[in-house]
Structures are given as C-alpha cells and as structure tokens.
C-alpha cells in the first residue's frame, strides 16, 4: 500500500527530527555530562577518564552519528544514574504506563460516548445541563488533587483500595506481556486478577477524568450537528426507532471528528502520566522520566522523548486508518 509506505517514511522523518532536537538540546544545557556520570565526589582526572570512555570529547557530529547508529541497533544508551541499559528500564516500565493510559481511554469512551449521545438527544434539558457541568468538572479538576482525594477517602478512610503501587508485595506471577491485567488473567488465578484490578481502580479513574469530560462534550456537540442534518430527520420521519437513529445512524457520523481528538488525548496521557504515577507510586515511564530529569540523566531524557514521540506517531497513524474505516469519503491516497 503506497499510502502506508509514505506515511511510514514521514513518520520516520518526524522521529528523526525529535531525536536530533533532543540530542542537540541535551548538549546545549550548561552542565557537564561526564561530571554527572562520574558523580559528585569524583576527582578531575576521573571525570576526564569518563569523558574519554563515553566518547564525550569527540566532535558533536561524530557523537550524533554514533548515537544514531546505537539507536538503529535498538540500543538506547546507558543511564548515568543507574548504569543500566535504558532499553531494559523502558521495557520494564513502559507497559505499566501504557496499561494505565489504555484502560483510562477505554473507560472514558465506554462511559463518555453514551453520556454524550444522551446529552445531545436531550439538548438543553436538565439532564443535558447537568451532564455538561459534570464534563466541565472532569476536564478542569487537577489530576493530582483528584488522586489525593481518592486516596484520602477510598484508601485511607474506607480502605477499599490499596493506597499505592501496582501489586501487593506477596503477590507475583509471570509477566509475559508486562500488562498486569492480561498477565494475571493468564495466570488463571482469580485472586491475582482481583489484586491487579484493585490497584488499577484509582489511578485509572483519575486518569480517565479528563478524557471522559472531553469525550462527553465532543460527542455531544458533534451529535447535535449530525442530528440537525436532513438525513437524521429523514430517518426519524421514516419511522426508524430512535435508538437506531442515535446509536447507529448518527453516532457513526459523530464519532469520526471526536476520535481524532481522543487519540491525541491518549497520547497526551502517556506523556503526562508522571503526576498520577507520582501520587500512586506507580512504577511507570512517567516516574522513571521524572527522576531522570531531576538527576539530569540526559540519555534517559532523550530516550524518553523518543518513546513518547513514537507513541504519538503510531497513534496518529492508527487514527487516520480508523477514520478512513468509519468514513468512506476519506481516501487513503
């Protein structure tokens, strides 16, 4: 498919651009990576040794080219702080964040789409107004504040959910996918699944608030437009049941514009997961990057930017394909 090939190549170009920019910025920051790597108590000779070992004394273009070479072999470099290969850390932590973001997006769509349809069908009535108010609340509540409230109430006071973490210390199972919900189901132990769900509940809820409010509002407004179209009127006039008009005939039209925004929200939630992860002690990519930024661990920061860019690019591509699937007028050419 020539369209896919072209999109793939432009995606690569975007990724290359982001790599270049983060690489250059990391070198422009007024700090000495060799000194950082060597540690605070290193003597100048040791720092010099590190500089040679890490080839940081080579011309910047040479460093750039060798960095690209490493990346193309799947090598994201070595963390200054942990001396671990970054790729291992990313593979270890990325699924945790992705699991949160995917479930939050799924939850916001499963709840938000029917709410939006309902609000549109009862435009300007009491239920519509209250739904809109709820949606605005969801969008505007700060994530960390909502997280703290939930912890205070449901974890500390009621004790329904664990305060933080991804799993209790006494539970463990094989992790072939890194997505604990899937892994726990594969372990065929209901108690494992239950433990995972209890840990997921609060962070997923908090993360879903923003996309939930957005979905409700977007679906509502595009449904109102679609329901005002003559084809919706014609279907109602022809005696097509209201449920079919709303959820089959109109929703498919309303979904396409809303999906584009929702996909970007998903990608955004991956990159902004650090707040939720910080509050809930979630071992994801967000908390990993936050600590890297605090320690000026440049290889990790650059790698993190790369991973998030890839998420954006992939999500965008999938959205375009999905859009074409929904709307026959969209041509992939």
């Amino acid at each position: 498919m020539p369209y896919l090939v072209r999109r793939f190549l432009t995606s690569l170009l975007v990724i290359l651009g982001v790599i270049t920019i983060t690489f250059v910025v990391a070198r422009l920051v007024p700090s000495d990576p060799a000194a950082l790597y060597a540690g605070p108590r290193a003597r100048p000779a040791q720092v010099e040794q590190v500089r040679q070992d890490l080839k940081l004394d080579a011309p910047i273009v040479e460093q750039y080219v060798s960095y690209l070479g490493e990346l193309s072999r799947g090598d994201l470099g070595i963390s200054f702080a942990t001396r671990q290969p970054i790729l291992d850390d990313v593979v270890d932590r990325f699924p945790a964040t992705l699991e949160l973001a995917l479930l939050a997006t799924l939850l916001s769509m499963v709840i938000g789409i029917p709410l939006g349809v309902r609000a549109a069908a009862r435009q300007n009535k009491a239920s519509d107004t209250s739904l809109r108010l709820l949606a605005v609340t969801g969008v505007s509540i700060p994530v960390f504040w909502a997280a703290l409230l939930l912890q205070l109430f449901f974890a500390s006071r009621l004790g329904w959910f664990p305060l933080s973490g991804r799993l209790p210390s006494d539970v463990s199972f094989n992790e072939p996918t890194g997505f604990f919900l899937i892994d726990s189901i594969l372990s065929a132990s209901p108690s494992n699944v239950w433990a995972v769900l209890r840990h997921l509940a609060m962070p997923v809820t908090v993360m879903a608030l923003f996309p939930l409010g957005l979905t409700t509002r977007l679906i509502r407004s595009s449904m109102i437009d679609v329901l005002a179209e003559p084809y919706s009127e014609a279907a109602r006039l022809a005696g097509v049941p209201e449920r079919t008009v709303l959820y089959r005939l109109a929703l498919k039209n309303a979904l396409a514009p809303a999906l584009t925004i929702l996909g970007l929200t998903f990608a955004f939630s991956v990159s902004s997961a650090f707040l939720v992860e910080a509050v809930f002690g979630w071992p994801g990519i967000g908390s990993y990057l936050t600590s890297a930024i605090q320690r000026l661990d440049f290889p990790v920061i650059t790698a993190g930017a790369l991973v998030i860019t890839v998420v954006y690019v992939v999500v965008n591509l999938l959205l375009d394909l999905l859009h074409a699937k929904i709307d026959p007028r969209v041509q992939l050419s």
Partner: protein
Amino acid sequence: MAGRESVLAMHDLRVTFNPPTGPVDAIRGLDLAIHAGEVLGIVGESGSGKSVTFRSVLGLTPPSATTSGTITVGGKSGTPTEMAPEARAISAMVYQNPGAALNPVFTIGQQLTLVAQDENESNLADLLDQVGLPEPAKALDSYPHEFSGGMQQRAVIAMALAQRPKLLVADEPTTALDVTTETQILDLLVKLGNERQIAIAFISHDLGVIGKIADRVAVMRNGEVLETGATQQILTNPEHPYTQMLIASSPGARETATFTAADEPGLLEIDNLTVEYRNRDRRAGRKVRVIEGLGLTVAKGETVALVGESGSGKSTLANAVVGLVPHVEGSIRFDGQDLATMTRAEKKAFRSKVQVVFQNPLLSLSPRRTIAWQLHEPLRLYTDHTKAERDERIAELMGRLDLDTELLDRRPHELSGGQAQRVVLARALAVDPTLIVFDEPTSALDVSVQVEVLELLNELKVERELTYLFITHDLAVARHLADRIAVMQHGKIVELRETQDLFDDPQHPYTRTLLASSASLEAPAASGASRD
C-alpha cells in the same frame, strides 16, 4: 377535484415560533387540502411559510413552536400535535439538497433496508431500478458520495417510496440540480405519482418549475394562502396582485436586453484556452481537461453570458479569466495585455480593473468583519485615498445600491441575502473596474430580489460603462441581461450568438436541449401579453 378524497387536509392551521425576541406568526389560519394522485404546487418566496406548513403538520417544527387548527388524515381529525403521528405514517419527504438527505457513512442499501423493513434485497434493487438508477444491484453497495446530485436525488426518492407513502412532500427537490437533471427528476416524480397514486406536495420558489409539474397551485405569502387554482389558470389568469407580480418578476417573462453593438476591439480576448486539473484518481489518467481550446472575445460595454450545466467548465473559465487558475495553453488578453506576461505592477492594476462577484455573498464576505471594513479594504489596497475620501466614496456607493448606511456597522450574517449580494457588488464597484465577472450572482436569491439585482446590474452597466462576463445555468437570467450568449458544453463553446437569435433559432442540438428543459414561463407570459 371536488368529490375526490383528500389525503391530508388542513383547516385554520396556525404556527407561531417563540424565539427569545418575541413570538413570530409563521402560519396564520391556513386552509389547504391535497388529494390522492395530484401534484399540488406550493409557491412563494422564502419566509412565506411554504415549508413550515408541512413541517408543522409532520411535527418537525421545534418544540417551542405553538400550533393550532384542525388536521384531517384518513378520516380522522385533530390538532396538529395529535395528528402528527398519523401524518408522519402516510408521508415521506424529498429534500432540497440530496447530498444532505443521505447518511454519508452508510451504503444506499443499508439505508434503504432501515426505512423499508418489510422489503427484501431484490425488491430494493427493483425500487432503485424504478427511480432510474443505473445498475441497481451495484448502487445498493454504493455510498452517497459516489453518486452525482441527480442520482442522489433518485436515491432519496427511492428511500421515500420504500416507506410506501400516500403523500410525498417534495421541498425544492430540484433547486440544487442542473436543468436537464431537473427535468428528469420532475418527470420521474410525475410518473411515480401517477403509477402509485401518491399525492405530491411540491414546494418551490420557482413558478417555472411549478408550471411544469403541478396540477393545482397554491400561492403563499406571509403564512397565508393567497389563492389556489388549476395551474394553467393561475399562471395565465392570476387574480391576486401578488401572484401577478410573481409571474411578472419571473426572469423568463421579461423582455430581452437590447444589444448595444460595440465596434471597439475586444476588452477581453480569450484565445485557444486550455485549463487542466490534476486528477486525484490515478486510474482515470493524471489530468482532466476542464476547458479545451476555447476562444471568446468580449467587447467593451458588452454583456456576454456563459450558460451550460454544472461541469461544463463555466466557473473554471471565470476563475481563469481573473487569474485564479493557471492555463496550460492559449492566452487571455485584457485590454491588449497578456495575463501570462504581466509584470507585478500591471497585475495589480489588472486586479482592480477586473472584479468578480460569486454566487454566495455570505461566502464572499468575511464573517468576522464589519461591512464598513470590507468596503474599505479594496480602496486601501488599490487607491491612496484618505480615510475621509474612502468614507465618501463608500457612502456614495451605498446610496447608489440602495443600501442604508446603518448597515456599515453590521456583520454579513445580519444582512439579508439581497443586501449581502449588493454589498459584494459595492465592494467590486469601489475600485472602478472595467470588467466584472459574475459567477451565478443571483442563484442564491429570491425571485423578486433576483429581478431587482438584475435590473440594478443593467443600470450600473450603462452608468459606469462596465463590461460583464456573466456565468449562469439559468437561460432566463441570461436572456434578461446578455447581449450575446455562449453555450458551453464539455469545456468548449458550442454556440455563440446574439441573445434573441439564440432563442429564436438555436443551431446546436445541445442548445436546443437546454432551451427545451429550461423551465421558463414564456408560454403563459406570451399568452398574457396577447390578451392585452
């Protein structure tokens, strides 16, 4: 008609809208009955209530609107609200814009299946065949955007028929179609109405179309029926003064503009012009020739009308003349200068000398700027007038075009269609052009406003020594205005004649088709004249 059972009858129907600004009476005590198998034409200008009448009966008016009166459907009577379900059960609608009446993301087959639950697939294909869609089996699997406007309207009619209606409400169903397609759709509606004994309420602002299709006509104004009667009687012998005015305003009934021959060399000389567009669909070849080897000379002070159906290349020609699309072969010369070799300064002068007026004034004006700002803009660009001089010039133009200076502080959406188009005209005239290119400038306007604007154009042309290149699909409008008419088909001019000659003695077969399908009021008007 008496003695025949009515499919739907309205007695003392009243509809009041209740916007925040205060109640508006849209329908004021209307009596109307429509009988099985007849085509009832409902004619009136926009705002006369012709659509609202049927929408209120079908329960399609907004919930805030109040209705009263008696509706009778199938022997049962009641208030409009009580009877709306019965009325909906026997009715189906055909809309003005067929593209909007079909759901873009479902196939024709899927949509037909939903409205016709008791039909199977072969019946559906049969239905599409009856409305004249080629390859019905394939059409079932097609999406609406794969159809032309005419085919879409046929699909909409098929959807309506699938509901087995007794009453078909057709609201301006051919307004968005070109002339030959219009004729086909009208013929189809008449045929189906006869075969299936369906009553058709045909709503239109166009008396010409009504004259071709309706058995009876009801003339509406301000929410009232002024008169009803057999079509021929209404068109040839209208009683109400308003009906007489409507018939007189219909462009086809007017006398032809007199030709003022100019011996000067052509102001605009188009020679062997070819315009191509890149084709999106590779399989159909890389490029489409929209205009091919076209030649046309427009003399100073002359009005040349370009007529043809949509897709014939008329608008592309307009865009090429003003330099909006490039041409691949041939030349366009304005006042002796070739468009392709003009310098920057010459281009700038050219752009003020040649102005364009497009079909939709609301799309030609910026929605966010005041009228004053938009009228100042060309003067700021092309003249070095001071603010005071510009104000004076604008005031003079506004006065000439019957526009109240109060409008200057408004934004386009606060104007009527006729006012907005006159603002666009004022903007074009502001920089003293010599040539104005019009692209369907009156198609979006009501009939009476349309005639006003055409009259105004004729006057302005004489006053300001203007030259017009006038593009229209409406032969009646062309006749009203043009000295010469060029008939375009497939990117070429197939006939170019003086207006009267063209109407008297069309040479090219395509011109004859156009003339034949043009819904002109010539016949009734002519017999009206002989009566005097």
